[in-house]
């Protein structure tokens, strides 16, 4: 029986395994050095916040794997011997594979800051990171202040987490607004205000210079590049993005760049070896997507696709319209299609914001043709299926604005804002033309 070995039990590897099982009878082994069972990485924050326990983050009960004949192996792979199709583990064990799927995910970025490896400096990606955080910052007595470096999705999550334990947080953001390489100005500024409303000490346009240690080698303070200010703290969260977790592959003949290089079929340069999820890098980017996509959904989609290929139905990774979501403290965010921080050439933005400063939308469209390109929505839930269809049908911005109600996914009885949005859109773009 063909033996499929998957390194990594995150969403990509597990999705691939599940679909291979559905489609075939192959022997499947999933290897992980992180946790024994698959858990939802995106839910790590809720464990620290006391919303859930670790058990709740496991999407499948423990009996699921045995029942579906998916073997789980807990261990760390040191190297891949491609010639003999053998994996070598840290503890000296080996494992033969017929096909190998690399789905090892990411690790936190470190940009060579002095002191970045001190005790008390953490990233927030793995279960081990969470355990370290729990030990370093159990409460505000042990951790008197935390400094977070990096104004992106993980940084704001970490700020929210520490906030629930009343630990004062200083949030250093290199850019002039939260996540503003991605979010348009109006949105980024709204989130800035929301962060401050939660009593976070948000410092924009600020760079980290170095991290200082006390006599025991533990974090004592950070120094800011721009002002020279020293901020005493017991914890430093480095959340300036992630990078593929592929150090153990670098010595092999498998071609890598930032990530493991793959073609559209998610194949590496070595036959029978594939890479999916955060650790895979497309040789050529797909559309507006980045070559390395470190998003839950893309990992899942690659897993779905690769399972087809492995089971004899060779299929290219062809993601549909871009979508993503996040939550910034109390404000939910969804995006469908492409909205850039500043409109691409020939495009325009329409931005609407509710006076309560927790809801806004931005749509991007082509100026000449009025073609709708994408929407960011904050604090208003909208339907994935409807926007996916409108993007496929190449609807105009006018059409989308007119039919916005169809896309509403809010809870019953919620106040809706389509009318106000439409009026504003017309005022801004149509009245002028008349």
């Amino acid at each position, binding site marked *: 029986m063909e033996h499929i070995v998957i390194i990594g039990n995150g969403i990509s590897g597990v999705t691939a395994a599940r679909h291979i099982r559905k489609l075939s009878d192959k022997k499947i082994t999933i290897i992980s050095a992180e946790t024994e069972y698959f858990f939802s990485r995106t839910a790590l924050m809720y464990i620290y916040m006391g919303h859930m326990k670790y058990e709740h983050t496991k*999407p499948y009960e423990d009996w699921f794997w045995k029942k579906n004949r998916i073997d789980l192996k807990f261990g760390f792979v040191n190297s891949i011997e491609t010639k003999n199709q053998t994996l070598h583990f840290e503890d000296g064990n080996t494992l033969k594979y017929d096909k190998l799927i690399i789905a090892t995910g990411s690790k936190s970025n470190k940009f060579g800051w002095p002191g970045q490896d001190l005790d008390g400096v953490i990233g927030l990606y793995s279960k081990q990171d969470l355990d370290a955080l729990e030990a370093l910052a159990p409460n505000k007595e042990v951790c008197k202040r935390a400094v977070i470096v990096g104004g992106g999705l993980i940084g704001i999550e970490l700020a929210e987490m520490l906030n629930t*334990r009343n630990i004062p947080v200083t949030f250093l953001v290199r850019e002039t607004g939260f996540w503003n390489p991605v979010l348009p100005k109006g949105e980024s500024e709204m989130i800035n205000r929301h962060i401050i409303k939660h009593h976070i000490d948000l410092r924009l346009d600020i760079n980290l210079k170095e991290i200082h240690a006390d006599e025991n080698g533990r974090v004592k303070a950070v120094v800011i590049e721009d002002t020279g200010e020293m901020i005493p703290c017991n914890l430093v969260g480095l959340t300036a993005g992630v990078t593929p977790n592929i150090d153990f592959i670098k010595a092999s003949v498998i071609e890598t760049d930032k990530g493991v290089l793959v073609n559209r079929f998610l194949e590496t340069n070595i036959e029978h070896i594939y890479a999916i999820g955060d650790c895979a890098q497309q040789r050529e980017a797909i559309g507006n997507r980045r070559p390395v996509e470190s998003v839950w959904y893309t990992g899942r989609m690659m897993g779905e696709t690769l399972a087809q290929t492995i089971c004899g139905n060779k299929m290219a990774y062809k993601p*549909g319209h871009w979508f993503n979501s996040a939550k910034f403290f109390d404000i939910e965010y969804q995006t469908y299609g492409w909205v850039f921080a500043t409109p691409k050439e020939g495009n325009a933005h329409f931005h609407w914001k509710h006076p309560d400063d927790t809801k806004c939308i931005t749509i991007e469209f082509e100026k000449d043709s009025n073609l709708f390109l994408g929407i960011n929505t904050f604090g208003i839930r909208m339907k994935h299926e409807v926007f996916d269809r409108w993007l*496929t049908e190449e609807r105009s911005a006018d059409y989308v604005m007119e039919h916005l109600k169809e896309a509403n996914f809010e*809870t019953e009885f919620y*106040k809706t804002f389509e009318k106000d949005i439409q009026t504003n859109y017309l005022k801004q773009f149509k009245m002028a033309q008349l």
Partner: protein
Amino acid sequence: MSNKLNASMSIAKPDSQALTKIQKVAVAIGVIGLFILVLAFFNVNFPNKPLFLTLSLIMMTVGTIIFANNAYLTKPEGIKNDGIWFKSISARGIVGWATGIALTVFYIVLYFKAEWFGLAGKGEANTGLIALFDPLSQLLSGRPASQWFVYGVLYTVAILIFGYKFILKYRHNKYERIRTYSVMFFQLGFAFLIPEFMARMNSNLPYYDLKSIWPLNYYIFEEWSVKGFLSSGTLGLMLLLFGIASIFIITPILTYKYGKRWYCSWVCGCGGLAETAGDPFRHLSDKSQVAWKVERWVVHSVVVFVTLMTTAVVYSYLGTDSSKYWLTKDVFLIGVAGLLTLVFALVMIFKRQELAKDAKYGAIGYFVIIMALIGMHYFSGTNDIFLFDATTLKQSYGFLIGAIFSGVIGVGFYPIFGNRVWCRFGCPMAAVLGFQQRLFSKFRITTNGGQCISCGNCSTYCEMGIDVRAYAQKGENIVRSSCVGCGICSAVCPRGVLTLENDSLKGRINSNEILLGNDVDLMDLVNQK
């Protein structure tokens, strides 16, 4: 799931579980209010009962209001689940267990030793706790209080004050707000005030909470109850007819349109308490597949039990002479058998596919009841179903289901098994409504394309123990008979994936192998069945 309190991996206490100073004062005020009741229980004879009763109720109310204001209004609107698994009360810690034991003991005394609360014997005056409530009862219905009046007052107060707390907690969520106003209204008006006023108007009328529908209200068709209605003139007759219409006409229509939530989380008193006072315990429900299996067997067995019991009880007091009254023992049995056969046949003909595996459970239940009916007919003349006397059957149901299950386990165990144990495992009304919700209702919880991140908030906070995530991560609608439509899964979802909807029956139960987001061809290919 283990019962171990695994609050935090750190030795030091996480800060978030500590109460603020104001919250401590609020707790003290509430506890003093409660202490007045305890003193009354130990037969302290308060000189001015109305004053002390008022004081007690007001202190408990004010304590809760101050606590809730401080806990929620000091923070921005949003989900307020911080530290739930770190707090002793809500994470099965020592406080949780102590509360559970206290509640359980309370229920045992309430059901089986009411004289300990000071319930008077015949011709005597109440003493102790019940005497403290006499003035209020006299004011409302003109009768002295009973243990049920005391219970009713405390129950109503609990729904009102914890309802207030719940509304603040979810003040950003209009669905939750309206739903909570609704349960507060129905408890105060329908369960508490109206029956008391009715008793004042007509003393023959049995206590009748209009929203308590058979089979939840399992005694409504018992002889004393029916006699009470029939001896109370037109009003009594109207009420009896309303009771029959409630289960056979009103319930099916509303459940078709809105799902069983119209009852379970908007109207019902058990649901009302679970959603308000029980809200801090909703995450303690067991989500394992084993629990789901147990749930289906137990709750449907209760339905079979209550159907048989009611049939036997009604049968036992009906006559045999059709010239005296048209509804004789035989006509009644044939009627029941006919109705059951009709429902069973319709389901098997039209909904066979959707039931699949569950069909055999339905068939077993149906078979048991029909055999029992035939048995009754066969042993006609005696009141026995096989060997069980109708009275015995009634008493065992009242004891096992009415008292032990719904009261002692249902509420007493809130802090251990979660707030919907009774609704999930025991309530025959919930099972009947759920059966219809699964097969013939416009209600479903819709998932939003491919946006689920499998975080598990929805499953964790589902009080009915539904593994919501299992559906959401497949992009599948949630159509489960046990869902009471509380809406919390949708509220706690951080990615806006879930919403409660009423829509057409077509395509209501869907399932996707591949989620939205991948190339459309792949989705078509893999999803074609």
